C-alpha cells in the first residue's frame, strides 16, 4: 500500500493516484492531495518536497460553495474590518492553517509572489500568519485566497485580540531592556572578578577605583533604563494604596546602586554593581518569559477567531440577487438564504420552508422547522432548503446583538483573581522595611560609620529576587505545558483561577454532546442482515435533506449505493423505494405499523425503522450523542470534590438520566435556560462563594463564559463563545480539562514551595545580615543560588505526566 507522498497518511486500497515529482512517480491518497501536489509541481516549486521537514496536512478539495464563500471577502464593507489601505497597495494580515515548517513559508511566498498584483508576502511560521500587500485593482483578494488553497493551505482574515498590538510593543521594549541588561551584566561581572580577587591579593587603590568606575558606567543603563518597569509598577501600586512585589525590588535596586555610586565617588565602602545588574537581569528574564508565553497564547488564540464575512444575498425588486454585507441590511429588505448559510439578520419567511439549526442560540439540538411567516434569527443556520425572507429589523437590534451586549456587560464584572505573591508582598514588605530601619538605628548607636553599609547589606541580602521569580517562572512553565495538552489560553490568570475551582458549569448541546445529529444505535437482530440493511438504508436516504436521513447516510457511508426506482418521500413519515425488485421502507415505527408491517414493535422507540413489505429488519436511533469522556469526567469531579451543574437552553430531557447516573446531582440540572438565566445562575453560585469554571460553545453561552472565574470554549463552538472565553479547547476533548485542573493545582503547589523557600532563605539570612556578618560576595552568592533553586523547581512543571 504505502503512504501518501504529500500528507503521509495511508493510501486506501481502491485509490490509484500518482503525481510526477522531480522525475519520480509518487503515490497520493486522495483527490485533494493529488490536486495540491500537481499544482505545486506545475508552479515549478517541487523543491518544497526536498526542503520540508514535516509532512503536510491532508487536504479535502474545496467545494464550489467554499470557493464562492471567499468572494464575500471582496466586499468593501467586509474588507473595512481587516484591510489597511496604503497609497499604492492594500495590506491585510491573514492566519494560515497548515503551516508546518519553514518550507511551507517558502512555498507560499513563492506561489503568491509570482502573481501579478501581489506586492509583497511575508509568512511568519511562529504565529502562522501572513502579511499580504496587494493591488486590489489588479487582483481581487478572493483570487489570492483561492491560490493559497490550491497549494494546500487555508488563509482567512481573523480578529486580532485587543491586547495584541500592545503585546508586540511591550515585547520589543522588554527584549531591548533585557538585552542591554544582559550585555552590561556580563561586563560588570567580569570587572567584579577583578574586584573580588583584589580583596584577597592586594589590589592597588588606583586599579580598584578604575574597576569601580567602569562597573558604574556599565551598571547605569541597567538601573536607569532596563529596570524602569519595576519602578513604574511600584509607583502604580503605591498610588492604588497597596504594596506589590516591585516596591522592595525598586528600593533594593535604587539604594544599592546609589550607595555603590557614592562609594565609587568617595572611594569608600563597598560596591554592589554586579549584584544589582544581575538581579535586574534575572527579574527581567522571568518577566520576559512570562510575557512571551502570554503573547504567544493570545496570538494563537486569535488565529482561531476567523473573521467570517457576515454577508447576505439581497433579492432586488426585479428578482436579481446581489451579494452584500449583512451590516447594510435594513428592515423590509428581501434576502435569500441557501442551505448551509448563516442567517444574516432577524427575518420572517415569505417563501419556501426549511429547518433551522438554532442550537447556538437556544441550545435546542434538533433543527427547528420554519414555514411561511416563521421568524428566523440572525446567527442560526439553514439546514435544508432555500428560503426567501423579509428582514424584520437591522442587525444592531437583532436577538444576537442583544446577547452580545449582555456578554460585554458580563465581561466588565468578571471577578479578579488575587495573586498569591502580591498577598505575601503586602505583609513581607512592611516587615522588611521595619527591620532595615531598626538595623540602621541600632547600629547608629554601636558604630555610626558602619550603620549605613550594614543596613544596605540587609537590603541586598533579603532582596526578594527568588520571591519575585517564584510566580512568573512557575506560570511560564505551566503555560508551555498547557499548550502541549491542547488548551489555549487567551487571558491571564487562568491557572490561578483553575487551581481554586469548586464548581463547574456546563452547557449541554455542543459541549457535553457533539452538537450534531448522528446514529447513536443501530439495531439488527439477524447477523446476516446487517450489511444488507446498511446498504439499503444508504440507498434510500442518499440525497435526502432531513437531519435523520443525513445522519443515517453518514453512518452507512462505507456501503455502496444500490440503484433504486420509484423513490417516494412521505413528509413526516419516511421514505420508500424499490431496490432489487423489492419495496423497502425506512421511517417512523408508527408509519410501518399503519402499513401493516410485522414485528416493527421490536424496534419501539427508534427514530427510523427499516422494513421490506412484510417484515421489519433493522432500526436506527438518531440523536445528539454525549461525548465519550463525559461520564468519566463527572466521576472524577466527584472524587476531586468539585460540583458540576448543567445549564441547557433546550427543554427536552435528553441525556438527563445518563448524566444523573454519571454522578450529576438532580438539583444541578436546569433546562430551558435563556442566556440571562444562565448568567444569573452563575452569579448566584459566585455569590455563595463558589469559584466557577464555565464550559460552553454557543452564542447563548457567551454571557456565561464572560462572567465565569475561568471559562473554556469548545473548539467547535461559535466565534462569540471563543471571544468571551479565557481558554479555548481546540480538540474538544473534555478530558484535557481534568489534566489542566491537575496542572493548575500542581502549579499552585510549586508556586507555594517557591515562595516558601524564598521566605525561609530570607528568614535565615536576615539575622546574619542584621548582625553585620554578611560580606557582599556572600550576599550575592546566596541570592543567585536561591534564585536558581526557584527556577529549577519551576522547570518541573514542564514535565508532562
Amino acid at each position, binding site marked *: 500500500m504505502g503512504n501518501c507522498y504529500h500528507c503521509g497518511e495511508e493510501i486506501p486500497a481502491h485509490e490509484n493516484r500518482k503525481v510526477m515529482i522531480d522525475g519520480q512517480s509518487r503515490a497520493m491518497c486522495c483527490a485533494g492531495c493529488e490536486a495540491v501536489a500537481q499544482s505545486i509541481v506545475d508552479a515549478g516549486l517541487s*523543491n518544497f518536497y526536498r526542503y520540508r521537514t514535516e509532512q503536510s496536512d491532508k487536504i479535502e478539495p474545496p467545494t464550489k460553495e467554499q470557493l464562492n464563500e471567499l468572494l464575500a471577502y471582496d466586499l468593501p464593507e467586509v474588507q473595512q474590518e481587516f484591510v489597511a489601505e496604503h497609497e499604492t497597495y492594500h495590506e491585510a494580515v491573514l492566519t494560515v492553517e497548515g503551516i508546518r515548517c*519553514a518550507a511551507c513559508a517558502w512555498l507560499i511566498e513563492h506561489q503568491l509572489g509570482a502573481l501579478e498584483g501581489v506586492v509583497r508576502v511575508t509568512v511568519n511560521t*511562529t504565529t502562522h500568519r501572513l502579511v499580504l500587500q496587494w493591488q486590489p485593482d489588479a487582483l481581487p483578494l478572493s483570487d489570492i485566497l483561492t491560490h493559497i488553497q490550491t497549494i494546500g493551505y487555508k488563509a482567512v482574515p481573523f480578529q486580532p485580540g485587543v491586547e495584541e498590538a500592545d503585546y508586540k510593543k511591550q515585547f520589543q521594549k522588554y527584549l531591548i531592556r533585557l538585552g542591554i541588561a544582559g550585555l552590561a551584566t556580563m561586563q560588570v561581572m567580569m570587572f567584579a572578578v577583578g574586584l573580588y580577587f583584589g580583596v584577597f591579593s592586594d589590589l592597588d587603590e588606583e586599579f580598584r577605583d*578604575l574597576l569601580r568606575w567602569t562597573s558604574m*558606567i*556599565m551598571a547605569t543603563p541597567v538601573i536607569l533604563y532596563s529596570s524602569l518597569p519595576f519602578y513604574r509598577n511600584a509607583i502604580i501600586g503605591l498610588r492604588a494604596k497597596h504594596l506589590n512585589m516591585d516596591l522592595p525590588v525598586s528600593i533594593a535596586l535604587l539604594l544599592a546602586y546609589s550607595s555603590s555610586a557614592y562609594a565609587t565617588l568617595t572611594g569608600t565602602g563597598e560596591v554592589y554593581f554586579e549584584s544589582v545588574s544581575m538581579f535586574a537581569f534575572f527579574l527581567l528574564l522571568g518577566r520576559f518569559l512570562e510575557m512571551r508565553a502570554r503573547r504567544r497564547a493570545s496570538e494563537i488564540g486569535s488565529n482561531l477567531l476567523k473573521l467570517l464575512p457576515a454577508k447576505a444575498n439581497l433579492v432586488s425588486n426585479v428578482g436579481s440577487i446581489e451579494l452584500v454585507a449583512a451590516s447594510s441590511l435594513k428592515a423590509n429588505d428581501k434576502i435569500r438564504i441557501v442551505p448551509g448559510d448563516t442567517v444574516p439578520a432577524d427575518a420572517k419567511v415569505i417563501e419556501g420552508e426549511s429547518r433551522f439549526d438554532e442550537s447556538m442560540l437556544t441550545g435546542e439540538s434538533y433543527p427547528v422547522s420554519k414555514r411561511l411567516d416563521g421568524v428566523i434569527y440572525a446567527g442560526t443556520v439553514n439546514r435544508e432548503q432555500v428560503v426567501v425572507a423579509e428582514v424584520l429589523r437591522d442587525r444592531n437590534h437583532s436577538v444576537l446583538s442583544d446577547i452580545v451586549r449582555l456578554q460585554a456587560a458580563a465581561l466588565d464584572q468578571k471577578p479578579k483573581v488575587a495573586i498569591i505573591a502580591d498577598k505575601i508582598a503586602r505583609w513581607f514588605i512592611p516587615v522588611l522595611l521595619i527591620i532595615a530601619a531598626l538595623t540602621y538605628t541600632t547600629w547608629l548607636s554601636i558604630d555610626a560609620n558602619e550603620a549605613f553599609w550594614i543596613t544596605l547589606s540587609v537590603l541586598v541580602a533579603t532582596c526578594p529576587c527568588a520571591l519575585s521569580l517564584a510566580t512568573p517562572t512557575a506560570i511560564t512553565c505551566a503555560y508551555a505545558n498547557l499548550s502541549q495538552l491542547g488548551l489555549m489560553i487567551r487571558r491571564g490568570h487562568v491557572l490561578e483561577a483553575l487551581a481554586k475551582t469548586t464548581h463547574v458549569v456546563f452547557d449541554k448541546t455542543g459541549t457535553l454532546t457533539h452538537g450534531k445529529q448522528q446514529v447513536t444505535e443501530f439495531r439488527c437482530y439477524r447477523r446476516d442482515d446487517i450489511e444488507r440493511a446498511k446498504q439499503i438504508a444508504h440507498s434510500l436516504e442518499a440525497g435526502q435533506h432531513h437531519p435523520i436521513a443525513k445522519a443515517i447516510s453518514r453512518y452507512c457511508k462505507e456501503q455502496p449505493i444500490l440503484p433504486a426506482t420509484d423513490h417516494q418521500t412521505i413528509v413526516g413519515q419516511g421514505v420508500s423505494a424499490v431496490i432489487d425488485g423489492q419495496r423497502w421502507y425506512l421511517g417512523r415505527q408508527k408509519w410501518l405499523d399503519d402499513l401493516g408491517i410485522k414485528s416493527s414493535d421490536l424496534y419501539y422507540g427508534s427514530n427510523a425503522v427499516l422494513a421490506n413489505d412484510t417484515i421489519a429488519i433493522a432500526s436506527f436511533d438518531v440523536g445528539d450523542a454525549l461525548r465519550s469522556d463525559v461520564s468519566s469526567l463527572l466521576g472524577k469531579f466527584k472524587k476531586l470534590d468539585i460540583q458540576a451543574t448543567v445549564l441547557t437552553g433546550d427543554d427536552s430531557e435528553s441525556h438527563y438520566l445518563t448524566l444523573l447516573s454519571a454522578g450529576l446531582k438532580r438539583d444541578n440540572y436546569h433546562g430551558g435556560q435563556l442566556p440571562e438565566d444562565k448568567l444569573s445562575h452563575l452569579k448566584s453560585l459566585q455569590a455563595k462563594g463558589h469559584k466557577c469554571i464555565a464550559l460552553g460553545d454557543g452564542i447563548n453561552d457567551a454571557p456565561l463564559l464572560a462572567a465565569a472565574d475561568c471559562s473554556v470554549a469548545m473548539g467547535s463552538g461559535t466565534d462569540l463563545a471563543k471571544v468571551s472565553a479565557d481558554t479555548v479547547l481546540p480538540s474538544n476533548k473534555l478530558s484535557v480539562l481534568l489534566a489542566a485542573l491537575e496542572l493548575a493545582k500542581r502549579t499552585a503547589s510549586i508556586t507555594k514551595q517557591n515562595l516558601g523557600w524564598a521566605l525561609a532563605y530570607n528568614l535565615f539570612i536576615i539575622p546574619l545580615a542584621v548582625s553585620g556578618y554578611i560580606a557582599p560576595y556572600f550576599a550575592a552568592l546566596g541570592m543567585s543560588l536561591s534564585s536558581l533553586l526557584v527556577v529549577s523547581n519551576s522547570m518541573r512543571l514542564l514535565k508532562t505526566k
Partner: protein
Amino acid sequence: MSILYILIPIAIVFVFIAIGIFVWAVKSNQFEDLERHGSDILFDEDEPSKRDKQ
C-alpha cells in the same frame, strides 16, 4: 598594568556597539520569527516554472 587603561575602555566601546546592533535587530523585527529565517539560506530560488516556459 597600565595597559588596563586602554583595554577596559575598548571593552566598553565593544559592548556599546553590541548593544547598538541588538537594538537595531529588535527594531527591525528580527526576533518576530525565530524558526523561519535560519533555513532561508538553504532554500534555492525556484527552478524556471512551467508557466514561464510557455
